[in-house]
């Protein structure tokens, strides 16, 4: 359809700004603004603008879903399975329903299609739910529900689940109803044997046998990564109000418009009758992308009770049943010639997403390096554990831990510097530059041979690369409203989950209109406004800033027409700067913003723009999602100190060199990158969901025993941001959230190797594992 629209040709800045810019010509839709100048020539974009909601958050005024209290609101509680695998022999909700103050009770677990009795597959799986006048009453009522469970054999660990005699999680085709972990490589038509599903072999190519035959050096190793949980500070939360004309929902979500679509489908309501709001959201990291069982449960309870219902997870519910990053066991072999060129990469991976599928390890091995023969076989292993879901750089974060250590190991065998080897095998000019900048900043020339330090505490340096794609949501729109009193509003259902997209919208609009960001009223997180993109897949800024700029430009053109007709000049002669509209060729003829908007014929004018295709086209698309580039990267360097007598690893410094197209708010990007690095340090050293293999329970379902990095464990983090212009859209901005997390653990592992001369192939790298790896512990490995 877009092809039929009139287009025009424009010249865009192109390349890495700090190396000098070229130009590139693109054909763009006629109703989109002219190319945006490089950041150096702009006043709002590319500047460190303070967060639009900072004050509200710091003072506590920000409204999170957990703060929403509606008149007559009831409180939900969920009865959860105490067993990892059980058949429900009988379920009697009536004693709970009979308790005064309980207004709705329902069964959550679904019966299988054949009408057989219901089966539960993990500890914490919802069985039933109810809504009552108070939280305490709801908890008390739960205890009245009578359930008779028939315990069934279960398995929660990856090894156990792969044994021939393992208890089977899905004995029939029921796995097809299991949730998808939302990972990129979750094709649905893969074979399943026992608990093992796969292989997914996307990206495989060439003849792996020939590749290894041509190799002069081969490295191989097995790498394990743990299950990590999202640990959002605001738990999953929803307040649902079912009423006669439809449904009102407040939800702590990464995707208001998506939740609306899911609710409309599930409850058979028109889209227009479902309203979803998320004013402030306390983190998501992938776990708040969907309506989820808990969300549907709250809505169903509200419909039943005819009253608003609030459902908020406790921390243990968060930890056991709101998603996680799937585990992996990766068998990696790499073959190369003496000059470093790769001849073959073989990866066999097994990962568990619990009862979900999609535990792949991403496209690191198939897409990061030049290699003619690649075999990628990725298997899901079902276990009786809570379902995984997407989590910050899903797949590639696990994949990087193996691949980037394998490449370093190869470099050592080739007697090459790890950076020099990557110069040979990595086709990306952007990452080459990132390696150069990172090496300079960390002081790579100080890097010693492995284990060179004397004394028990040894220092080391390492680096790793990441791979992610520049994603775009094409179903993304933005409205600009200009009022006669001069007020400007930018509206979209896009939600700010802490990433700062509200600030970014204000900057983009202010830049276009010659105003200040604080002049722009940001109204987002409400599906009454045009549908915005999700806050996942690192695609929010890339999807919503181009339509925001386009709409602002269209509004500006309309305002210029209004002023031009008063002045009886050609609107083309007008421009706006610092709140004044003037003639380009005669700046003394000017009018203030307020006086200009007063010339409008009506009280309010409005423009709505949607996300058009990237000017150079997309590499792929599926549904509303499209991909502009598949090598949005980033390179990270780490410096560590390892105490070889205690096994303690201290990460002292991380240098993160990242690119995201045009940076719009460097301050916020830096903060995103720091968050990504912190999450990576935490993943590298501490975090681990621990399930008891004999009971199936999570042993650390709180934030004391589930360990996250704290202030003392935080390294010095330096962020270096590239300005990379491609001329792809009206803003040329892409995402940063996920790439910032992918390389960290691998960079730390490579630094640890450089420090102690022993490879840590299992996450998290705890003191116990380090001592074992160093041979300090008599007795079997941990």
């Amino acid at each position, binding site marked *: 359809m877009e092809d039929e629209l009139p287009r025009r040709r424009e010249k865009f800045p192109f390349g890495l700004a700090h190396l000098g810019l070229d130009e590139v010509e693109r054909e763009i839709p006629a109703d989109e603004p002219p190319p945006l100048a490089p950041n150096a020539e702009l006043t709002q974009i590319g500047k460190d603008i303070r967060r639009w909601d900072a004050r509200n958050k710091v003072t506590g005024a920000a409204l999170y879903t957990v703060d929403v209290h509606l008149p007559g609101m009831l409180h939900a509680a969920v009865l959860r399975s105490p067993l990892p695998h059980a058949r429900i022999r009988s379920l009697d909700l009536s004693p709970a329903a009979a308790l005064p103050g309980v207004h709705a009770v329902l069964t959550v677990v679904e019966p299988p299609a054949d009408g057989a009795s219901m089966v539960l597959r993990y500890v914490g799986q919802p069985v039933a739910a109810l809504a009552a006048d108070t939280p305490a009453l709801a908890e008390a009522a739960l205890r009245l529900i009578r359930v008779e469970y028939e315990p069934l054999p279960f398995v929660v660990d990856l090894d156990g689940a792969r044994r021939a005699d393992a208890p089977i999680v899905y004995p029939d085709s029921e796995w097809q109803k299991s949730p998808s972990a939302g990972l990129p490589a979750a094709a649905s038509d893969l074979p399943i044997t026992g608990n093992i599903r796969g292989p997914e072999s996307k990206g495989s190519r060439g003849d792996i046998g020939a590749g290894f035959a041509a190799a002069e050096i081969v490295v191989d190793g097995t790498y394990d990564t743990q299950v990590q949980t999202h640990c959002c500070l605001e738990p999953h939360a929803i307040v649902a109000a079912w009423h006669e004309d439809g449904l009102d929902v407040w939800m702590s979500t990464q995707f208001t418009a998506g939740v609306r679509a899911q609710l409309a489908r599930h409850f058979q309501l028109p889209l227009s009758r479902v309203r979803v709001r998320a004013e402030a959201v306390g983190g998501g990291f992938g776990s708040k992308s969907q309506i989820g069982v808990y969300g549907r449960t709250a809505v169903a309870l509200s419909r039943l009770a005819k009253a608003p219902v609030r459902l908020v997870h406790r921390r243990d519910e968060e930890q056991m049943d709101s998603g996680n990053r799937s585990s992996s066991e990766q068998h990696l072999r790499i073959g190369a010639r003496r000059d470093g060129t790769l001849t073959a990469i073989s990866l066999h991976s097994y990962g568990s997403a619990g009862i979900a599928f999609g535990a792949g390890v991403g496209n690191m091995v198939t897409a990061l390096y030049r290699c003619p023969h690649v075999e990628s076989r990725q298997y899901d292993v079902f276990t009786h554990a809570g379902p995984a879901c997407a989590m910050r750089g899903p797949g590639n974060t696990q994949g990087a831990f193996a691949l980037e250590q394998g490449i370093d190991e190869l470099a050592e065998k080739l007697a090459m510097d790890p950076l020099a080897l990557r110069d040979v095998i990595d086709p990306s000019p952007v990452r080459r530059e990132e390696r150069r900048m990172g090496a300079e900043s960390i002081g790579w020339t100080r890097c010693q041979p492995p284990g060179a330090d004397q004394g028990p505490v040894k220092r080391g340096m390492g680096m790793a690369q990441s791979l992610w794609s520049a994603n775009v949501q094409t179903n993304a729109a933005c409205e600009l409203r200009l009022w006669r009193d001069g007020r400007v509003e930018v509206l979209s259902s896009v939600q700010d989950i802490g990433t700062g997209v509200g600030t970014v919208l204000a900057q983009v609009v202010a830049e276009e209109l010659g105003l200040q960001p604080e002049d722009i009223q940001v109204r987002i997180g409400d599906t009454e406004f045009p549908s915005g993109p999700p806050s996942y897949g690192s695609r929010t800024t890339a999807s919503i800033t181009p339509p925001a700029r386009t709409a602002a430009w269209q509004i500006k053109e309309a305002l210029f027409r209004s002023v031009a007709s008063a002045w009886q000049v050609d609107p083309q002669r007008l421009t706006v700067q610092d709140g004044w509209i003037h003639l380009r060729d005669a700046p003394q003829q000017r009018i203030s913003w307020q006086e200009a908007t007063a010339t409008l014929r009506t009280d309010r004018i409005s423009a709505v723009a949607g996300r058009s295709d990237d000017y150079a086209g997309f590499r792929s698309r599926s549904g509303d999602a499209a991909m502009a580039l598949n090598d949005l990267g980033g390179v990270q360097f780490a410096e560590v100190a390892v105490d070889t007598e205690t096994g303690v690893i201290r990460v002292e410094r991380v240098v993160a060199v990242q690119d995201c197209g045009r940076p719009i708010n460097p301050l916020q990007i830096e903060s995103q990158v720091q968050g990504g690095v912190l999450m990576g340090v935490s993943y590298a050293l501490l975090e681990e969901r621990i399930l*008891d293999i004999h009971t199936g329970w999570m042993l*650390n379902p709180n934030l004391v025993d589930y360990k996250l990095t704290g202030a003392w464990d935080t390294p010095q983090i330096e962020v270096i941001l590239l300005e990379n212009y491609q001329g792809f859209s009206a803003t040329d901005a892409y995402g940063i959230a996920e790439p910032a997390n992918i390389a960290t653990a691998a960079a730390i592992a490579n630094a640890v190797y450089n420090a102690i001369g022993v490879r840590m192939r299992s996450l998290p790298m705890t003191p116990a594992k380090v001592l074992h790896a160093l041979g300090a512990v008599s007795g079997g490995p941990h």
Partner: protein
Amino acid sequence: MEAFQWQQARSPAEAAALVTQTTAEAMLTLHDTPIAQQAILVKAGGVDMLDLMKEGLVNPLRLVDVSRLAELQGISRGSDGSLRIGALTTLAQIAADTGLRQSHAALAQAAAMAASPQIRNRATLGGNLLQRPRCWYLRSAAHHCLRKGGGHCFAFAGDNRYHAVFANHGCAIVHPSTPATALLAFHAQVELLHPQGQRRQVPLEDFFVLPEADMHRENILAAGEILTAVWLPPQIQTNRSIYFQVAEREAFDWPLAAVAVVMDLDAAGLCQEASIVLGAAAPAPWRARQAEALLRGAAIHGETAEAAGEAALAGATPLAQNAYKLPLLAALVRRAVLAAAALPQDPRAP
């Protein structure tokens, strides 16, 4: 969490008279009467108590709050140099006390390394010594283990990475108190007030109970007894002490292994007396007696320290996942012995 009543104690004696059970006793009976518990329990800073209540491990009918009782506050020094630390003294106060940092450096260091600044501001020494262990099975209402009156220890065949390497038969908790490691090295005593009004003073070493003696409690506190103070005997001028620990996180975490060393060196640099206590190693702070014996009369240098580290492991019976604690403990002992010998009293003062 269930609803409960709250009562402000007006005196230690009143608190003692009101309290019906120890927290350990209340946890034992919880399994049979999960909701309607009749227990009246004592609460100081409430850090551990609140945790236990949130997990549904105790559901007291009433809490008796002693946290405002002036007579249980503060540190006082006797004319002989002995110290009395009131049970309500917070870990933060202990860590910051200038006198204590001089005379009992290891205790101040241990207090300073426990938990996090916020918790140390709230956590009392009495409550710290009486907090329940961190074994994650004990802390999970779903696991009715031996220590809670059940018939099974889940840790033995389960995940025991953080558990005890000494005296771990039957139940393998490690004692959770960081200050206790140092207190034992100083031969501290606890002062207890009985509901009938008697006060008794018990050496800390006798106060703690190993699983082989009683699986259901970590100490001999009787129902209604209030811990009023901790006494530290006077220190010899030449005493040097140090506390070292290793944890996975720098704060907000319990140690994986810890050691407190108190050493008396004579002018010739010979060790007259040493007490070496291991933390996070056993169900009670664990005296490394063989290491102590080895150092007595010896000159302190790299080799003796190394030997002390090895000797400290005597009798260890590591479980499937915690053998790493042995090299860790040995290294800590060696380092602490050397540090105690070579460094002035207060090497880590901020």
